[in-house]
């Protein structure tokens, strides 16, 4: 089943929707503007009636897997249920209808919400202040590194390197490079954790920060975190926490207590704002006291019960986003935290750890576990044995799971594990769902042993089978080199052949 593009469904006979008329005597654009300032031809937007639009998007919706319908064991992405009350809260007219340039007196409730959310996040991760401006995790990483750099500059230090473990998320090195740093990789030891010896050899007066996630991307808690922090701080460098894995330990421990100086959080992971098929998210950053002067402006301040936006921050790294961040996502996250409370958040993390260990146990007979448990909220398995023996790769297992109504785990990440299959069940899933998933894995692995070709041919039950991305890349390349007019990256009306 495939669905035509809106452009292909377009019919010239469709009238535009009924819209307000001007009802005033003002001139039309063509009466005032010179011809060259005007658009010569209307833009090529599709022309569909409302029922056609609704059916088109309903059919597209039915072609998606989503957390509302499917188990999404996507490692590192924390795909947990998005409570519907969050949506109700964000759509309250008292929030959705606010203009960002309204006077402070008229937005006290919005500022109060931001202030309370900041306090709650401070309590959860153990920091002094939080900026709510960054729009996503990567944006938060970059914001944090800018603050660290500004702080070190203010002390007359020109530190040029950022250390990143080999198991880190790809955004870490990218954010570091965009902040003007050289990236130096730190190796993992045999137990999957950062090698203290390698870290020590790479630390120097040039080191600005170590970027770390804990538990790391293998789902393992860095047991020596306090030694790591001491080592990093002893050279005058700072410790940055990648908050992708925060769902592992809310109420159990805090990055601030571990020694992290800057901490980003993904509200769209840990705090249940929906992922939206790729955003919008929100990536607040928490900092310890010494970094507070460098926070992006504005911050939300409260004096005598009155809330205000503070733009007068002379040492601030400036503005990282227009207005005050993804406010609608802040409302959702605040609603979640309020509903869960301290007790609920702690329980959520414990359940997430329990689920991951349970599922790990259920599939350890079928998939290789390169590292010893227990794990935290996720684990990384490997399909390298199947790959060697049966030619069945992690990707084949992922696609076969899709055919069995499960979204696929993250595959080929982290890079340090060959044929990696990264599974994060989250606290959302019931014991029965975890068991059904384990049964599916068992069936797939059995099939790999007996009929590997059957797996290469999956998925079969979805709107399309495996797409030939190599052929697509070749077409794109030809287009980008100017050798064809077939754009591949957008729809273009087919050239009518004369009949």
């Amino acid at each position, binding site marked *: 089943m495939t669905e035509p593009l809106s452009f292909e469904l377009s019919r010239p006979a469709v009238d535009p929707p009924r819209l*307000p008329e*001007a009802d005033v005597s003002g001139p039309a654009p063509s009466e005032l503007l010179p011809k060259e300032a005007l658009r010569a031809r209307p833009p090529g937007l599709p022309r569909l009636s409302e029922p056609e639009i609704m059916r088109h998007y309903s059919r597209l919706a039915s072609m998606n897997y989503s957390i509302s319908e499917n188990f999404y064991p996507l490692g590192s992405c924390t795909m947990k249920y998005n409570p519907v009350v969050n949506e109700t809260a964000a759509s309250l007219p008292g929030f959705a*209808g606010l203009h960002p340039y309204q006077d402070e007196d008229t937005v006290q409730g919005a500022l109060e919400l931001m202030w309370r959310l900041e306090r709650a996040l401070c309590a959860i991760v153990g920091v002094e202040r939080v900026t709510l401006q960054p729009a996503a995790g990567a944006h938060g990483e970059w914001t944090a590194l800018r603050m660290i750099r500004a702080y070190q500059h203010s002390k007359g230090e020109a530190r040029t390197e950022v250390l990143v473990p080999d198991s880190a998320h790809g955004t870490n090195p990218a954010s570091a490079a965009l902040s003007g740093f050289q990236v130096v990789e730190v190796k993992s030891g045999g137990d999957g954790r950062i090698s203290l010896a390698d870290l020590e050899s790479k630390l120097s007066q040039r080191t600005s920060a170590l970027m770390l996630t804990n538990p790391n991307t293998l789902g393992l808690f860095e047991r020596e975190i306090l030694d790591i922090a001491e080592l990093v701080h002893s050279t005058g460098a700072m410790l940055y926490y990648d908050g992708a894995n925060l769902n592992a330990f809310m109420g159990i421990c805090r990055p601030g207590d571990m020694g992290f100086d800057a901490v980003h959080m993904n509200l769209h992971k840990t705090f249940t704002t*929906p992922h939206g098929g790729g955003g*919008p998210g929100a990536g607040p950053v928490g900092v310890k006291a010494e970094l507070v002067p460098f926070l992006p402006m504005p911050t939300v301040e409260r004096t005598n019960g009155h809330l205000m936006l503070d733009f007068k921050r002379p040492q601030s790294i400036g503005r990282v*986003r227009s207005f005050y961040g993804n406010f609608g996502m802040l409302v959702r996250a605040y609603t979640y935290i309020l509903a869960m409370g*301290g007790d609920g958040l702690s329980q959520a993390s414990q359940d997430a750890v329990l689920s991951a260990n349970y599922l790990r146990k259920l599939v350890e007979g079928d998939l290789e576990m390169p590292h010893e448990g227990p794990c935290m909220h996720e684990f990384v398995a490997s399909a390298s044995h199947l790959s060697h023996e049966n030619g069945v790769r992690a990707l084949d297992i992922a696609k076969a799971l899709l055919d069995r109504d499960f979204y696929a785990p993250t595959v080929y990440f982290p890079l340090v594990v060959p044929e990696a299959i990264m599974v994060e069940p989250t606290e959302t899933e019931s014991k029965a769902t975890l068991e059904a998933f384990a049964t599916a894995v068992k069936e797939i692995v059995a099939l790999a042993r007996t009929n590997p070709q059957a797996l290469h041919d999956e998925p079969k039950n979805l709107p399309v089978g495996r797409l030939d991305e190599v052929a697509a890349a070749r077409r794109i390349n030809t287009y980008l080199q100017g050798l064809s007019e077939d754009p591949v990256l957008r729809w273009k009306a087919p050239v009518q052949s004369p009949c």
Partner: protein
Amino acid sequence: MLETIGVKSMNDLLVDIPQSLRLESLQLPDGLSEFETMAQVSALAGRNHVYPDRLTFRGGGVYRRFIPAAVAAVTSKPEFYTAYTPYQAEASQGTLQAIYEFQTLIAELTALDVSNASLYDGATAVAEAAMMAFVHTGRNEVLVSGYVHPEYVQVLRAFGEGRGIKVRKGGEPNQKTAAVIFQQPDFLGLLVDAPGLTAAAHDAGALAIACVDPISLAILAPPGEYGADIAVGEGQQLGLEPSYGGPHVGFIACRRELVRKLPGRIVGEAHDASGRRGFALVLAAREQHIRREKATSNICTNHSLCALAASVYLTYMGPYGLRQVAEVGFRRAHALAERLAALPGWEMAFPERQFVNEFPMRVPKAPTVVKKLARKGILGGLDVYRWFRELKGVLTFTCTEVNDARALDELVAALK
């Protein structure tokens, strides 16, 4: 479950965490029922004042517009809003095709070759475009021409600092200039000489980056037509609520030659073994998860759902609906400008310049005017003095299809 795992208690699973780090509990109140949660959240919402759409004449980058009911009906489908980034193409065709349609819509609007899947907002879109120019030209200065949104310029500066990119305001492009950035219409609502600025950029070997208002493109010449290399902008007007400034959606489109430097996700057409057409994330080799520190951008999560809203909006409007909306705003703004300019002491701040649906007035006692309007329930002009010291006493007003003729009467009456 613990028994299956082979441990006695939850604590046995947490053995790797040093004892000294373990918390007793979080310093937060206990959880609430849904009823109590909503009571608290609603109380906060109730402490804000929401101005009626029709009496909102303030813009400055965020505008009140008519939002068709179809937009929320589509974006509130859980199959869209609770899906992840479409890594597994076969199970994400809905999202992927919607993004492909968005890319096509933006390419059509801007008359450029290729659009990406979306960015965070207009401000970061400007900054990302500047990064592209920096990488493409190897030059490290960008020139901001005229009244570009001040917050966009602030974000551009913050982004630029990390890469060693200098942001210069005004003046002529030269051999160091990577790009000339202008806004059409500009922050005050005025039209700039986009073809002239584009030509000047090209003469200096720089790229031309046009920051555009997507609805104005129904009537104004699009960036691709006057030769701009990159078009960026804020898509809030395409079906998104003001929501105190976000989430909205940034868009970016460019010429074919620049596509490999385009940040963020891009969806392309592909086929399966039986020849069925599908869509997938493509050109991943540009992105952070492959290139890591060599990537030109770190963007990962973008604003897919907001892009979906924009797609539904544009599809609902179609070419002629969009033009109708743009023209109504144009006519009403011009009618309003004429009436405001007739008020004693009021005058057009730049009488020789053209505008679309937002315009600057020089008025006596601007802060008092704004307060007076607020008292009458009108969100009046935007005082731009806070950003531009030379614009003391200048308020910008905006009109769209939601400001009916009677609302214009009420505004003028309130000022008399």
